[in-house]
């Protein structure tokens, strides 16, 4: 089953501590240990589903190249941290915090991250502020 939720529409009845949660897709839409691009409130995000079925959301724009490609990076681990490596110049980021763990000789730049919750097989992301 696949749920599509309109990109600009918040899902009623799901507001929690976060001002606004937006249903984005079903967990099944995300391949394990791979990323997918999502358009949420006009902002491009990269969603990642890790081996343990956790889902993380970070900015889709790769800060080192400026291209919107983060979802296409290789997902892995570094110690205990779930990571993604930029497909462009291979900088490695912690998916939980966005921290740049390996800047490949450049000045580290972190990724913006968004809270994600998976409820009833649906992936919800806290509404991002426009401009990211």
């Amino acid at each position, binding site marked *: 089953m696949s749920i*599509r939720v309109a*990109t600009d529409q918040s899902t009623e009845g799901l507001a929690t501590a976060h001002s606004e949660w937006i249903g984005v897709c079903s967990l099944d839409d995300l391949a394990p240990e791979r990323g997918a691009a*999502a358009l949420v409130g006009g902002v491009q995000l990269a969603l990642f589903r890790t081996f343990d079925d956790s889902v993380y959301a970070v900015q889709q*724009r790769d800060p080192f190249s400026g291209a919107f490609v983060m979802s*296409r990076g*290789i*997902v*892995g681990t570094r110690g205990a941290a*779930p*990571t993604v490596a930029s497909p462009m110049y291979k900088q490695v980021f912690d998916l939980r915090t966005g921290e740049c763990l390996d800047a490949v000789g450049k000045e580290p730049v972190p990724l913006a991250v968004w809270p994600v919750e998976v409820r009833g097989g649906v992936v919800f992301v806290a509404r991002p502020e426009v401009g990211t």
Partner: protein
Amino acid sequence: MPSVADMLQEQSPQHLVVVGGGMVARRLIDALRARDEAGQWSVTLLCEEPRAPYDRVALTSYFTGRHPEDLALGGQDIWDDPLVTLKRGVKADSIDRAARTVTTNGGAVLPYDALVLATGSYAAVPPVPGKDLRGAFVYRTIDDVADLRAWVEKRRDELDRPVRGAVVGGGLLGLEAAGALRALEVETTVVEFAQRLMPLQVDDGGGAALKRLIESLGVSVRASTATSRIVGDRGVVSKMEFSEGEPLDVDVVIFAVGVRPRDELARDCGLDVGERGGVVVDDACATTDPAIWAIGEVANIGGRCLGLVAPGYTMAEIVADRLLGGGGTFPGADLSTKLKLLGVDVASFGDAFAEEPGGLEVVISDPVAGVYKKLVMSDDARTLRGGILVGDATAYAALRPMVGRELGGDPAAYLLGPDTAGSAPGLDLPEDATVCSCNNVTAGEIRCSVTEGGCTDLAGVKACTKAGTSCGSCLPLVKKLVTTELEKSGVEVSSALCEHFDLSRAQLFDVVRVQGLTTFSEIIATHGRGRGCDICKPVIGSILASLGTGHILEGERASLQDTNDHVMANLQKDGSYSVVPRIPGGEITPEGLIAIGEVAKEFGLYTKITGGQRIDLFGARIDQLPAVWKRLVDNGFESGHAYGKSLRTVKSCVGSTWCRYGVQDSVGLAIALELRYRGLRSPHKLKLGVSGCARECAEARGKDVGVIATDNGWNLYVGGNGGFTPRHAQLLAEDLDTDTLVRTIDRFLMYYVRTADRLQRTAAWVEDHEGGLDAIRAVVLEDSLGIAADLDAAVAVHVDSYEDEWAAVLSDPEKLRRFGSFVNAPDVADDSFGYVAERGQPRPATPEERAGGVLIAGTTLEVRR
């Protein structure tokens, strides 16, 4: 007892001013800051150039695509050190020795406790008429080379024909400059006053070999020639006239006749200078004023100025030592040189000209192979005194440290080839033999960094000892020393793939193959830890693919692939992809060409012919890829695997079917080979080439596997590549019939696929393979390991299981679903792209163009929906 205030006073640093921002100044500051743990000295560096010290020795690499920033020396964090002040674009105007101050061109007055002059040299310009015309250059700074390039490009546009240039001076610098002109595609002539090239480094025999090698590269050489005048046309250089011989039409002239020390600051403040210039210093690098030191090219030490960086570095180390109370002295300069000029190896070391009486010369001169090698031995032929190597200087790293020592073997054995040089008899370096002459590092220091310094790899030893960090010519020897020492101390040299696997790629390959593992989860659960990374995942994806176990996007395997393999196209800088259909052997029908053109037109793609004789289509969004493939597949094309670490192309010349000179059907063989190995995943990309005759129009010797037709069959070459470190392929076997040829290539490729390291191309693999090419030849031709049948079977599996990866995805809705733009809006196009038109095609807009709003279109406007 001193008061607290006095103690603080004592601890506040003294001030060092360094005048001149070259390589030697940088070395001084590095050395001082590394050793001055108590912070006794603060340093101000005055750089006349608008940039921090950079690698002047590597200046010519600016023309092969390196940016000025890439020439930066070492880490840039030294300039953030609070005790170091870098002043760019500031020149010292005068020194007041009584007041101990330096006045800058901006009028600032800087007090000093110690002053170091490291002002280097001017490029000398001979007093020939016309030397100041536009189009005449020197070759010294980044600005010089940038101006030179701009001039050549301007003239090319204006003249609409190849630019012609000349270099005055055929020494080391002149040949560097000639290399730069050649890189700019200038028709180049080198004019040398002496009777041979590089008169200071090589003898007549070496000079003759060098001339032949350089002329074979298309650079003309005029030796024994004095330039009498440069003739201008409207203020621009147009012709050179010589004391003898025909004049030469030129559009650009570079003077590279030598350097002159920049000693005028010293002269003006009354320090002693040498007869032919240079600030006179003693063997501690101190001038006649004990507060002033001079180092590098400006220093006149032992009665001469030294134009090499290695002695300059030694002087910098001595001054750093002296400033901290040490007693270092200059041990005399090692003027050994090894260079690659215009791609030609030249080395000169020790008593190269046999000036010491009683020397014996051992000479090997082979004009056909383009090498000249000479060793100068003591009169009993035991002790090495010096040597000259032209055309092949691989023996240099091993020989130079042996100067003054017994070689312990037949001297000729050292000259006979690269294979014997490293392993020549009795070459066990003494502790005090200098291995890295740039940084004056001995074999003992390198061994010690491993045994006592705790270094466990080459990178660590380089960081710790600085060995091999300047010119790099000694690195093979350093690596050998480090490996030997590690093995001796029982340390296993780590070949672990990454933090998740302790195995090397070759070991992993064997484990996966023998145990029949087919998934990443199984492999990492049994042989690794964690969940992998961008290093080990693609390696395992590649191993599984090499073993012919199904589509690269099947199930969990999709998560292992780098984005290129994952979407079967090549990621470009803006996040779009390029698509390359296979064109086997570079042969294509008119219908095929039209079909590709129509696809490009329909999707608004930029098209370019690749180096591998096919056509690359750029600028497709990820969601457009299946539609692009569909059109191509419908027209009979398939994936060209341009994205994979796999076979790319088999390049061919037109061969005997059309060519007047061809002796075999190179196109037919190239197509057969490309269809045989298409899709074969390997440790790195693989390129093949087939030439139909010895003229070698397919450039097969620049390929991993190169085949050249002979009257009797095919010659097979292996281990060539272009790229960052170009290599010529070496002959593996001669005059093979087609079946034997194919079987030999099968085995070579599969053996490489199984045993090479990650991202190791065939050239490095052959070099690292124990026993080198001979051992590989024994494996593939004589089955010395008894694995030939196994390798043959593996290739047969590959050939039988091949399928077009694009077509397979197009017929699988589950895989196709991954090509949506957004998981929650698969039909909304990504609007982050912007293009402008250039020469009638789209290209990604620059940030400035995007900000300025001059886009012709995002891709959404141009493409089919």
